[in-house]
């Protein structure tokens, strides 16, 4: 059963990722991204990371992709891009080689190190336990980093407001 879930979720992830790369229309690419993010959330549930699965759906699929769609609609760039134009003739084969090379090297390293990863005690798959453990870790060991993310978010929001503000005529 676990394996069937793994295969189905992986198919979602890979199909969505290919959709992002290959779809000419930005709206379709954004919706393919949702498919990938849901697939990753299914993997998180299968691994017992229930809190991260929920956050993945809420923050990524709920907020980030909606932001993408919002920008696409706001700018009116939802026209399909002509993918047959290649500004640099060698770019696509080269990019495919780079992508396949990165993946291939990573897979080779993973398969090579397969037996050297020591077995730890697996985390409890119980949802309640996962959230408790994560909260304890977040608010004890990483509390400074956690508080600092609020500063990061404030700076990001203020910076974006400043960046996208239309300059009024007359003001310097």
């Amino acid at each position, binding site marked *: 059963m676990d394996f069937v879930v793994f295969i189905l979720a992986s198919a979602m992830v890979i199909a969505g990722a290919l959709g992002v790369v290959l779809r000419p229309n930005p709206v379709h690419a954004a919706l393919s991204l949702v498919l990938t993010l849901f697939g990753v959330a299914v993997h998180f549930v299968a691994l017992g*990371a229930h809190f991260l699965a929920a956050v993945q759906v809420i923050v990524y699929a709920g907020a980030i992709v909606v932001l993408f769609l919002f920008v696409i609609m706001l700018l009116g760039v939802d026209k399909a891009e002509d993918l047959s134009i290649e500004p640099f003739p060698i770019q696509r084969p080269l990019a495919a080689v780079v992508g396949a090379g990165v993946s291939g090297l990573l*897979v080779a390293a993973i398969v090579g190190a397969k037996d050297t990863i020591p077995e730890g005690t697996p985390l409890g798959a119980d949802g309640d336990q996962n959230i408790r453990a994560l909260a304890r870790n977040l608010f004890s060991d990483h509390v400074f980093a956690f508080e600092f993310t609020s500063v990061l978010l404030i700076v990001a929001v203020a910076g974006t407001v400043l960046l996208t503000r239309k300059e009024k005529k007359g003001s310097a």
Partner: protein
Amino acid sequence: MQAVVLAAVVPTTTYYLVLSAALFGIGATGLLVRRNPLIMFMCIELMLNAVNVTFVALAVRFGNIDGQTAVFFVLVVAAAEVVVGLGIIISILRRRPGATADDLAELKG
């Protein structure tokens, strides 16, 4: 019979790591191929998700919750990064509609 064999296989950490390597490769290829800045951004999100899958798979394998905390921070930073990046893209595309990454080779507005 086939279904029984499939159901008996348990996906190990290696399976998840291979999946995330494939996802990272697809994201990297897309980042290099596509010229629409919005789609290049989505490819960066794909690569971030590949890293998140790795973090969670290894956190479960080692029985250490720190990996999941790292994923939490990756999510927060990704959200901030998307906000700032889309703000930059909006201000660029407002000035020159239909600009691709190739048109933005110089900082001069």
